[in-house]
């Protein structure tokens, strides 16, 4: 949402790496998890791989020593750098859901899917190179990866935002990497905004997955697009569930009143995001958000919920 550029240590084992991307500002943060072995979570965009490598080296880790790169799902902002990144991380295995893996091997669909949402802007995010099959460790949920020194990452199946979505949980520091399976929330924009992608938002799926996550004992929730959540983790996850229902009900009510897409989108930008976040209008929102997220996020949310409502009969 609004993430400051730079590298930040979250706890003893976890570093957040928010490096300049596409438009020059971080859009997806990667997280480095250090045990005896090192893992990277979320690879972001092909074009920003050099920046990411520099950040990794900056915390004293040789990219060549990275053992695993986890991706929560196959969308452009999470997985498109993997092919390029592996060239500098020869040891690394990509850990991804089996459906994600298929797309990673033949990534044309990743670009096509992103093109549906971003249009031509998709080109800014850099090339998507395929990941060789033997570099992928396919998971389906429940797998554990031991990094040594008590540090370990577990895979939790969280379909919803995307059917191939997984979350990753670090058990020693009780840190959750939920991918896009949670809402966006930051101190600058303190509203819970569901993260939808092109097509109908799988409201039930996301809530079910969130329900699974609430059972975890958590210290930190490290999100890809808004950094570390500045709320109590359990409270945050519960609020996400409530918020998703609320967004659906509000958009449904607008549709029932005869409002159409552009009007609902306007309400979403002006009222449901700007005003509720404490800004008098979208023009007052922080510049980064206004420039990079405002043209895309509200559209995806409104489209996701409208399709969810209108596709049902």
């Amino acid at each position, binding site marked *: 949402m609004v993430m400051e550029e730079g590298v930040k240590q979250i706890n003893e084992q976890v570093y957040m790496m928010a490096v300049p991307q596409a438009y020059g500002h971080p859009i997806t943060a990667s997280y480095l998890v250090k045990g005896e072995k090192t893992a990277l979570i979320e690879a972001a965009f092909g074009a920003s791989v050099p920046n990411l490598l520099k950040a990794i080296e900056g915390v004293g880790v040789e990219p060549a020593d990275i053992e695993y790169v986890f991706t929560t799902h196959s969308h452009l902002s999470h997985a498109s750098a993997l092919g390029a990144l592996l060239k500098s991380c020869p040891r690394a295995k990509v850990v991804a859901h089996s459906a994600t893996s298929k797309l990673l091997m033949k990534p*044309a669909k990743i670009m096509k899917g992103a093109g*549906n949402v971003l*249009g*031509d802007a998709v080109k800014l995010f850099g090339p998507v190179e395929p990941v060789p099959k033997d570099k992928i460790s396919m998971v389906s949920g429940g797998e554990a990866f031991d990094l040594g020194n008590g540090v370990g990452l577990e895979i939790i199946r969280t379909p919803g935002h995307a059917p191939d979505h997984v979350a990753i949980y670090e058990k020693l520091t009780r840190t959750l990497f939920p991918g896009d399976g949670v809402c966006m929330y930051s101190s600058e924009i303190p509203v819970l905004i569901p993260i939808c992608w*092109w*097509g*109908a938002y799988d409201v039930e799926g996301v809530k079910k997955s969130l329900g699974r996550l609430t059972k975890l004992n958590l210290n930190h929730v490290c999100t890809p697009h808004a950094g570390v959540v500045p709320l109590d983790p359990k409270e945050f996850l519960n609020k996400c569930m409530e918020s998703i229902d609320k967004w659906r009900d509000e958009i449904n009510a607008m*549709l029932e009143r005869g409002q*159409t*897409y*552009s009007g609902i989108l306007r309400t979403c930008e002006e009222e449901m995001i700007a005003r509720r976040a404490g800004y008098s209008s979208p023009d007052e929102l922080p510049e980064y958000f206004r420039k990079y997220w405002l043209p895309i996020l509200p559209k995806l949310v409104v*489209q996701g919920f*409208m*399709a969810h409502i*209108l*596709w049902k*009969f």
Partner: protein
Amino acid sequence: MKKIPTYCFMCANGPDPLNVVVEDGVAVGIEPNSDVAPYHPGEGKLCPKAYGLIHKLYNPFRIKSPLVRTNPRKGWDEDPKWKEISWDEALDLLAEKLSEIRKKGNLDQQGRPRLAVTTGSGGTPEGHWGSFPAFIVAFGLLDLTVGGGQGIKCYHCEHVYSEIWHRSFIAAPDTPNTKFVMGFGPNVAASRGAAGNRRHAEARVRGYKRIQIEPHISATVAVSDEWIPIKPKTDAAFLYAMIHVVLHEMDWHGVCDIDFLKKMTNSPYLVGPNGYFLRDSETKAPLIYDPVDNQAKVFNDRTIKDFALEGEFECTGVEIGPDNEEQRHEDVKVKPVFQLLLEHTKKYTPEWASEICDVPAETIRKCAREFVENSTVGATIEIDGEILPLRQAAIELGKTVNNGWGGFQVCWARTILAILTGSLEVPGGTVGIGARLNPPAHDKWQSIMPGPDGFMLQHYNPTEKGRWPSPPHFRSALTELTPLTGMRGWAQAISGTTLSWIFMDKTPENWPEVKPPDVWIVYRTNPLISFPDRELVTEVTKKFPFIVSIGYTMDETTWFADLVLPDHTDLEGLQLFRLGGLTHTFEAFWEHYGFALKQPVVKPPYNTKDMTDIWTELVDRLGILDRYNGAINRGLLGAPLKDRLEPDRKYTSEEIWDHVCKGATRVLSGGSEERDLEWFKEHGFYFVKFPKKRHYLHPIMVKWDLRYELPYQEGIKRVGEELERRLHEKNIHWWDKQLEEYPALPECEDFSKIWEEFYGPGHDLWAISTKSALYAHGANVANPLYSELSKRVPNFPGVKIHPKTAEERGIKDGNVVIVEAKGVKVEGVSMLCEGVRPDCVVFAAQFGHRVTPFAKDLKIPNINDLTFLDLKLVDAIGGVAEIARVSVKPR
């Protein structure tokens, strides 16, 4: 006696649920299933063809066990010397061939799939092919573009362009609400099955008027109010002249649906000097002109007070041309699309059309006026609690009318008439039935998402520099030559499948060699009868190294097979299949959606196999059972499974469909109900309500603030220009004529001249074909019942010819005549008839069999012998019209 529910799916109207009466283990009768009456648009009635299912089951000429060819030579005079083998031997042999493919890699050296599968008419094989979709996923890339008749037997231009314009695979009149229908050729009375005919009958009782425009009196003309005998392949000129009448002879401000044009189409978009929309320099959104504020604004600007449709304005902006090239314009003169349409249609007068169509200009004027009057602009109707526009006039197109050259113009002009009157996708007007290139099939609302420029999102194959040609590559060159079909849903099957045959015969210049597939599987189709240029298709078929025919009697394509697998017929196989909603190809307008079971009604009398068991045995032998079961788990057979199949267990067909029955009912009921196979065996079907308003796109277009990409084809123009660049970069020029078919506003011409020039002098008559109610969709030609019945239809096998034409040639009724085209001769029996234009002869579709039991005895000629696969006759999306220029003389 037992009554067992199952379904008929022998034509594109189905599936239609029915009951089979079984006595002492013998199927003795077919009955309508009265339980389905409340859900079925034809009140559960069946068409006569369904009654032949019994005869199909007990056909004495059935293939009774797997066969292998022992004579390697192939030809009409070569006896294949079939040898009966066991199922294990047959499946081992096929698995060995498929496993060789997998070892070599699914793609040949040119990047095309080594395995090709061809299936038949109107999507009907889907209701019989069992778990084939899961096999496809498990096996990986295969080629579905080796055509069995698509592009010539279907409504090809309508399929492709209507999916772009209004997400419809078939566009039909909203028969339950319309008052006036113009049918350019569709023989609906012979081919729309029980439900469609019921809808037509109800409309006639309601007093609707139908004008049928076609060269001969078909079964549909017989139930129409007027017949206009038009010259073949000139329908576009008729429709263009109708547009001219509306825009230039009537007061369009008064008779058109102005609000619809302004808000639901691109009529107000400004067009720049290069023919692309003039766009806002910053946002790149198309501009319109607001005549109240006297300034150009972005099309969805909230401050727009009105949209200019006419005039010329000086504006600043950018055009985005091919390969995203931007051109800036300062104070350039631009016009709205509608102004360009007015100018574009000025020359297409009824007098101009009359010369081409051989129809009086006044008749065209009268039709245009009636169309507009019946459109009832301004009227509304309440459907499912929503007030929608009611426009009670529609235009329907036939097969040959919208296949091949001129088809694009016909489809465009028909749709333009619909937007002028606001009758597109609203009650009473022209509406789409399902979407097949933009899934899901049952509900077109779900295929709509907002795309750029205020239109619905399109899914063309890429043509921009660096992205063309995009893999995968198929024999029909779907991703290389026909980008408009996209790659979703039925795209492969509906691509230019004619091109596969043309290219396999002779690879064109500067093109990667097109080789036959290593293995070709043919199912419920007979390309050696149904494809044009049968000689070429036969010669190409002979070159195929290994052909597998899955079928129930011997037929012409099977004659060339290496392995024959007899599957269970319709009354023996097991499958759950979706029906209702918008899944049916034609205008049935179901108000329910659900699934029905096809089940064995008796113990199969012969050594045949269930399709699902065939695929399961194959994937097991290939070692890809886990991928196959995984695909079934994910929902490839109709619904995702809750109780998942274990990856490496081989399940029986019954076990698989039991899981699918449960999955499907859970999805339909929103998780509240689950019905197993036993329940379906007893009850036959499971439905939920399908809201009527979902038959129309209008409500969802309004909710998404979307416009139809009409009348101006900016997107198509860009694709065409990019494709031209790509092909010319590779020095490919044999597709240049087709590249002309990407205009923003299509020009009309006398398309009949293309055939006249191709066939040349000496061919003075048109040969056209017509469907017969008995044999429509061809699934029944080997059926003894229909053969018997056809003998009772007077002059059934005749070549229809006008008495005057016959007399000039010394032909009498019942003579054997020779019909010749470019040196190819066929024989038929003349049937003199006033109800055919004197410049036409009419063939029944489609016969000319040499091998198929019963059909071979009918001695009816096949128009496909007189049609040719030649790029000169192939349109931009790969279609060819089933029409020929011929000479006729007595034998």
